[in-house]
């Protein structure tokens, strides 16, 4: 028994470090997953300016329809990478709500005019507070909000085709199945 002790200790350390290698310490998951959307209210984007009469609030969710909540910005390069996939999702009839993070409304509008607008509506998070409220640590991030207004999933960073097929679509369908979501 004593003879194997160094080997056992070595194996334990090696396993621990091995697991550590597979972790991504730069990705800090939101602790909001599994919780309802926090209360918020931000102005909507309307023709390149903020719409002072209409807000995007947490009450716009939880109406029995599953939505994607996508945090983007015109200054964000990875957002351009995932944009075609969002366009495809929108074309397939999924509801996507955009949050323009710390972005000039004019720039957000230009971004959407150039690349296409996949969003049902876009909330303006001018000071970044909404991002903090839902637990984002950067842009882009994508959340799935189910029909009950619960955050069921968070993806940090841009969506690539693999994530799209393996993570987003199945979870979106699952959330729709559980809480409704067809138009």
């Amino acid at each position, binding site marked *: 028994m*004593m003879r194997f002790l160094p080997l056992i200790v070595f194996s334990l350390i090696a396993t621990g470090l091995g697991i550590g290698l597979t972790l991504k310490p730069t990705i800090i998951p939101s602790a909001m997953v599994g919780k309802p959307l926090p209360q918020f209210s931000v102005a909507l984007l309307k023709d390149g300016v*903020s719409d002072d009469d209409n807000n995007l609030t947490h009450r716009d969710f939880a109406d029995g329809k599953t939505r994607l909540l996508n945090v983007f910005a015109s200054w964000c390069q990875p957002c351009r990478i995932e944009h075609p996939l969002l366009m495809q999702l929108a074309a397939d009839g999924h509801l996507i709500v955009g949050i323009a993070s710390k972005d*000039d*409304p004019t720039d957000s509008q230009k971004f959407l005019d150039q690349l296409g607008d996949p969003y049902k509506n876009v909330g303006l998070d*001018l*000071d970044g507070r909404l991002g*903090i409220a839902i*637990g984002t*640590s*950067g842009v882009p991030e994508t959340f799935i909000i189910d029909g009950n207004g619960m955050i069921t999933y968070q993806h940090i960073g841009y969506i690539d085709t693999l994530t799209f097929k393996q993570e987003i679509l199945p979870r979106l369908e699952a959330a729709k199945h559980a809480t409704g979501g067809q138009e």
Partner: protein
Amino acid sequence: MMTYTYVNSSLSSKTAVFSVIGALLLFFVALTLLVPQSVNAQGLKVLEEKPLPDAEMEQRARTYMKGIRCLVCQNQAIEESDADMARDLRILIRERFANGETEAQISAYLVERYGDWILMNPPLSSKTWLLWSAPFLIFLLALTIVWLRRKETKALVAKGQNMPQTQLSAEEKKRLTDILNQGDNT
């Protein structure tokens, strides 16, 4: 004469180059002055970071910020980070201090969103008990190993099994005396 004109012309071309560089520099300086203004003019809410008016409260806030981890930097407190995200959190924290919230209340808000990760000193919980007790566990393990080894040695000594090392055979004794005698001779 030729040389002189040559030098002169090269001088004037140098002056031209420098004036172009100068003009470019001026242009960029002008740009940096223009950009923030145009951003503000178009309605982007750029929050300004400034210390709290109450010096004592500012001190409290600063101390508190030393314990809040920056989300986009590796293992740096927001108090010492230049990251945009850290700045946003500092402004948020100052605002909450000014609203009379306590450290615990602000931590509760942050932990609800980012988990214990956001705290530089993760609290003792069902997830972190192993982390906090690791030093003591390792110390106990070391003690156990030392104790087991001593017990093993004692058992061997009792059985007389490690005696051969201290008791020489007749042949070894003879060799030893031979070597010692040789030493005397030389």
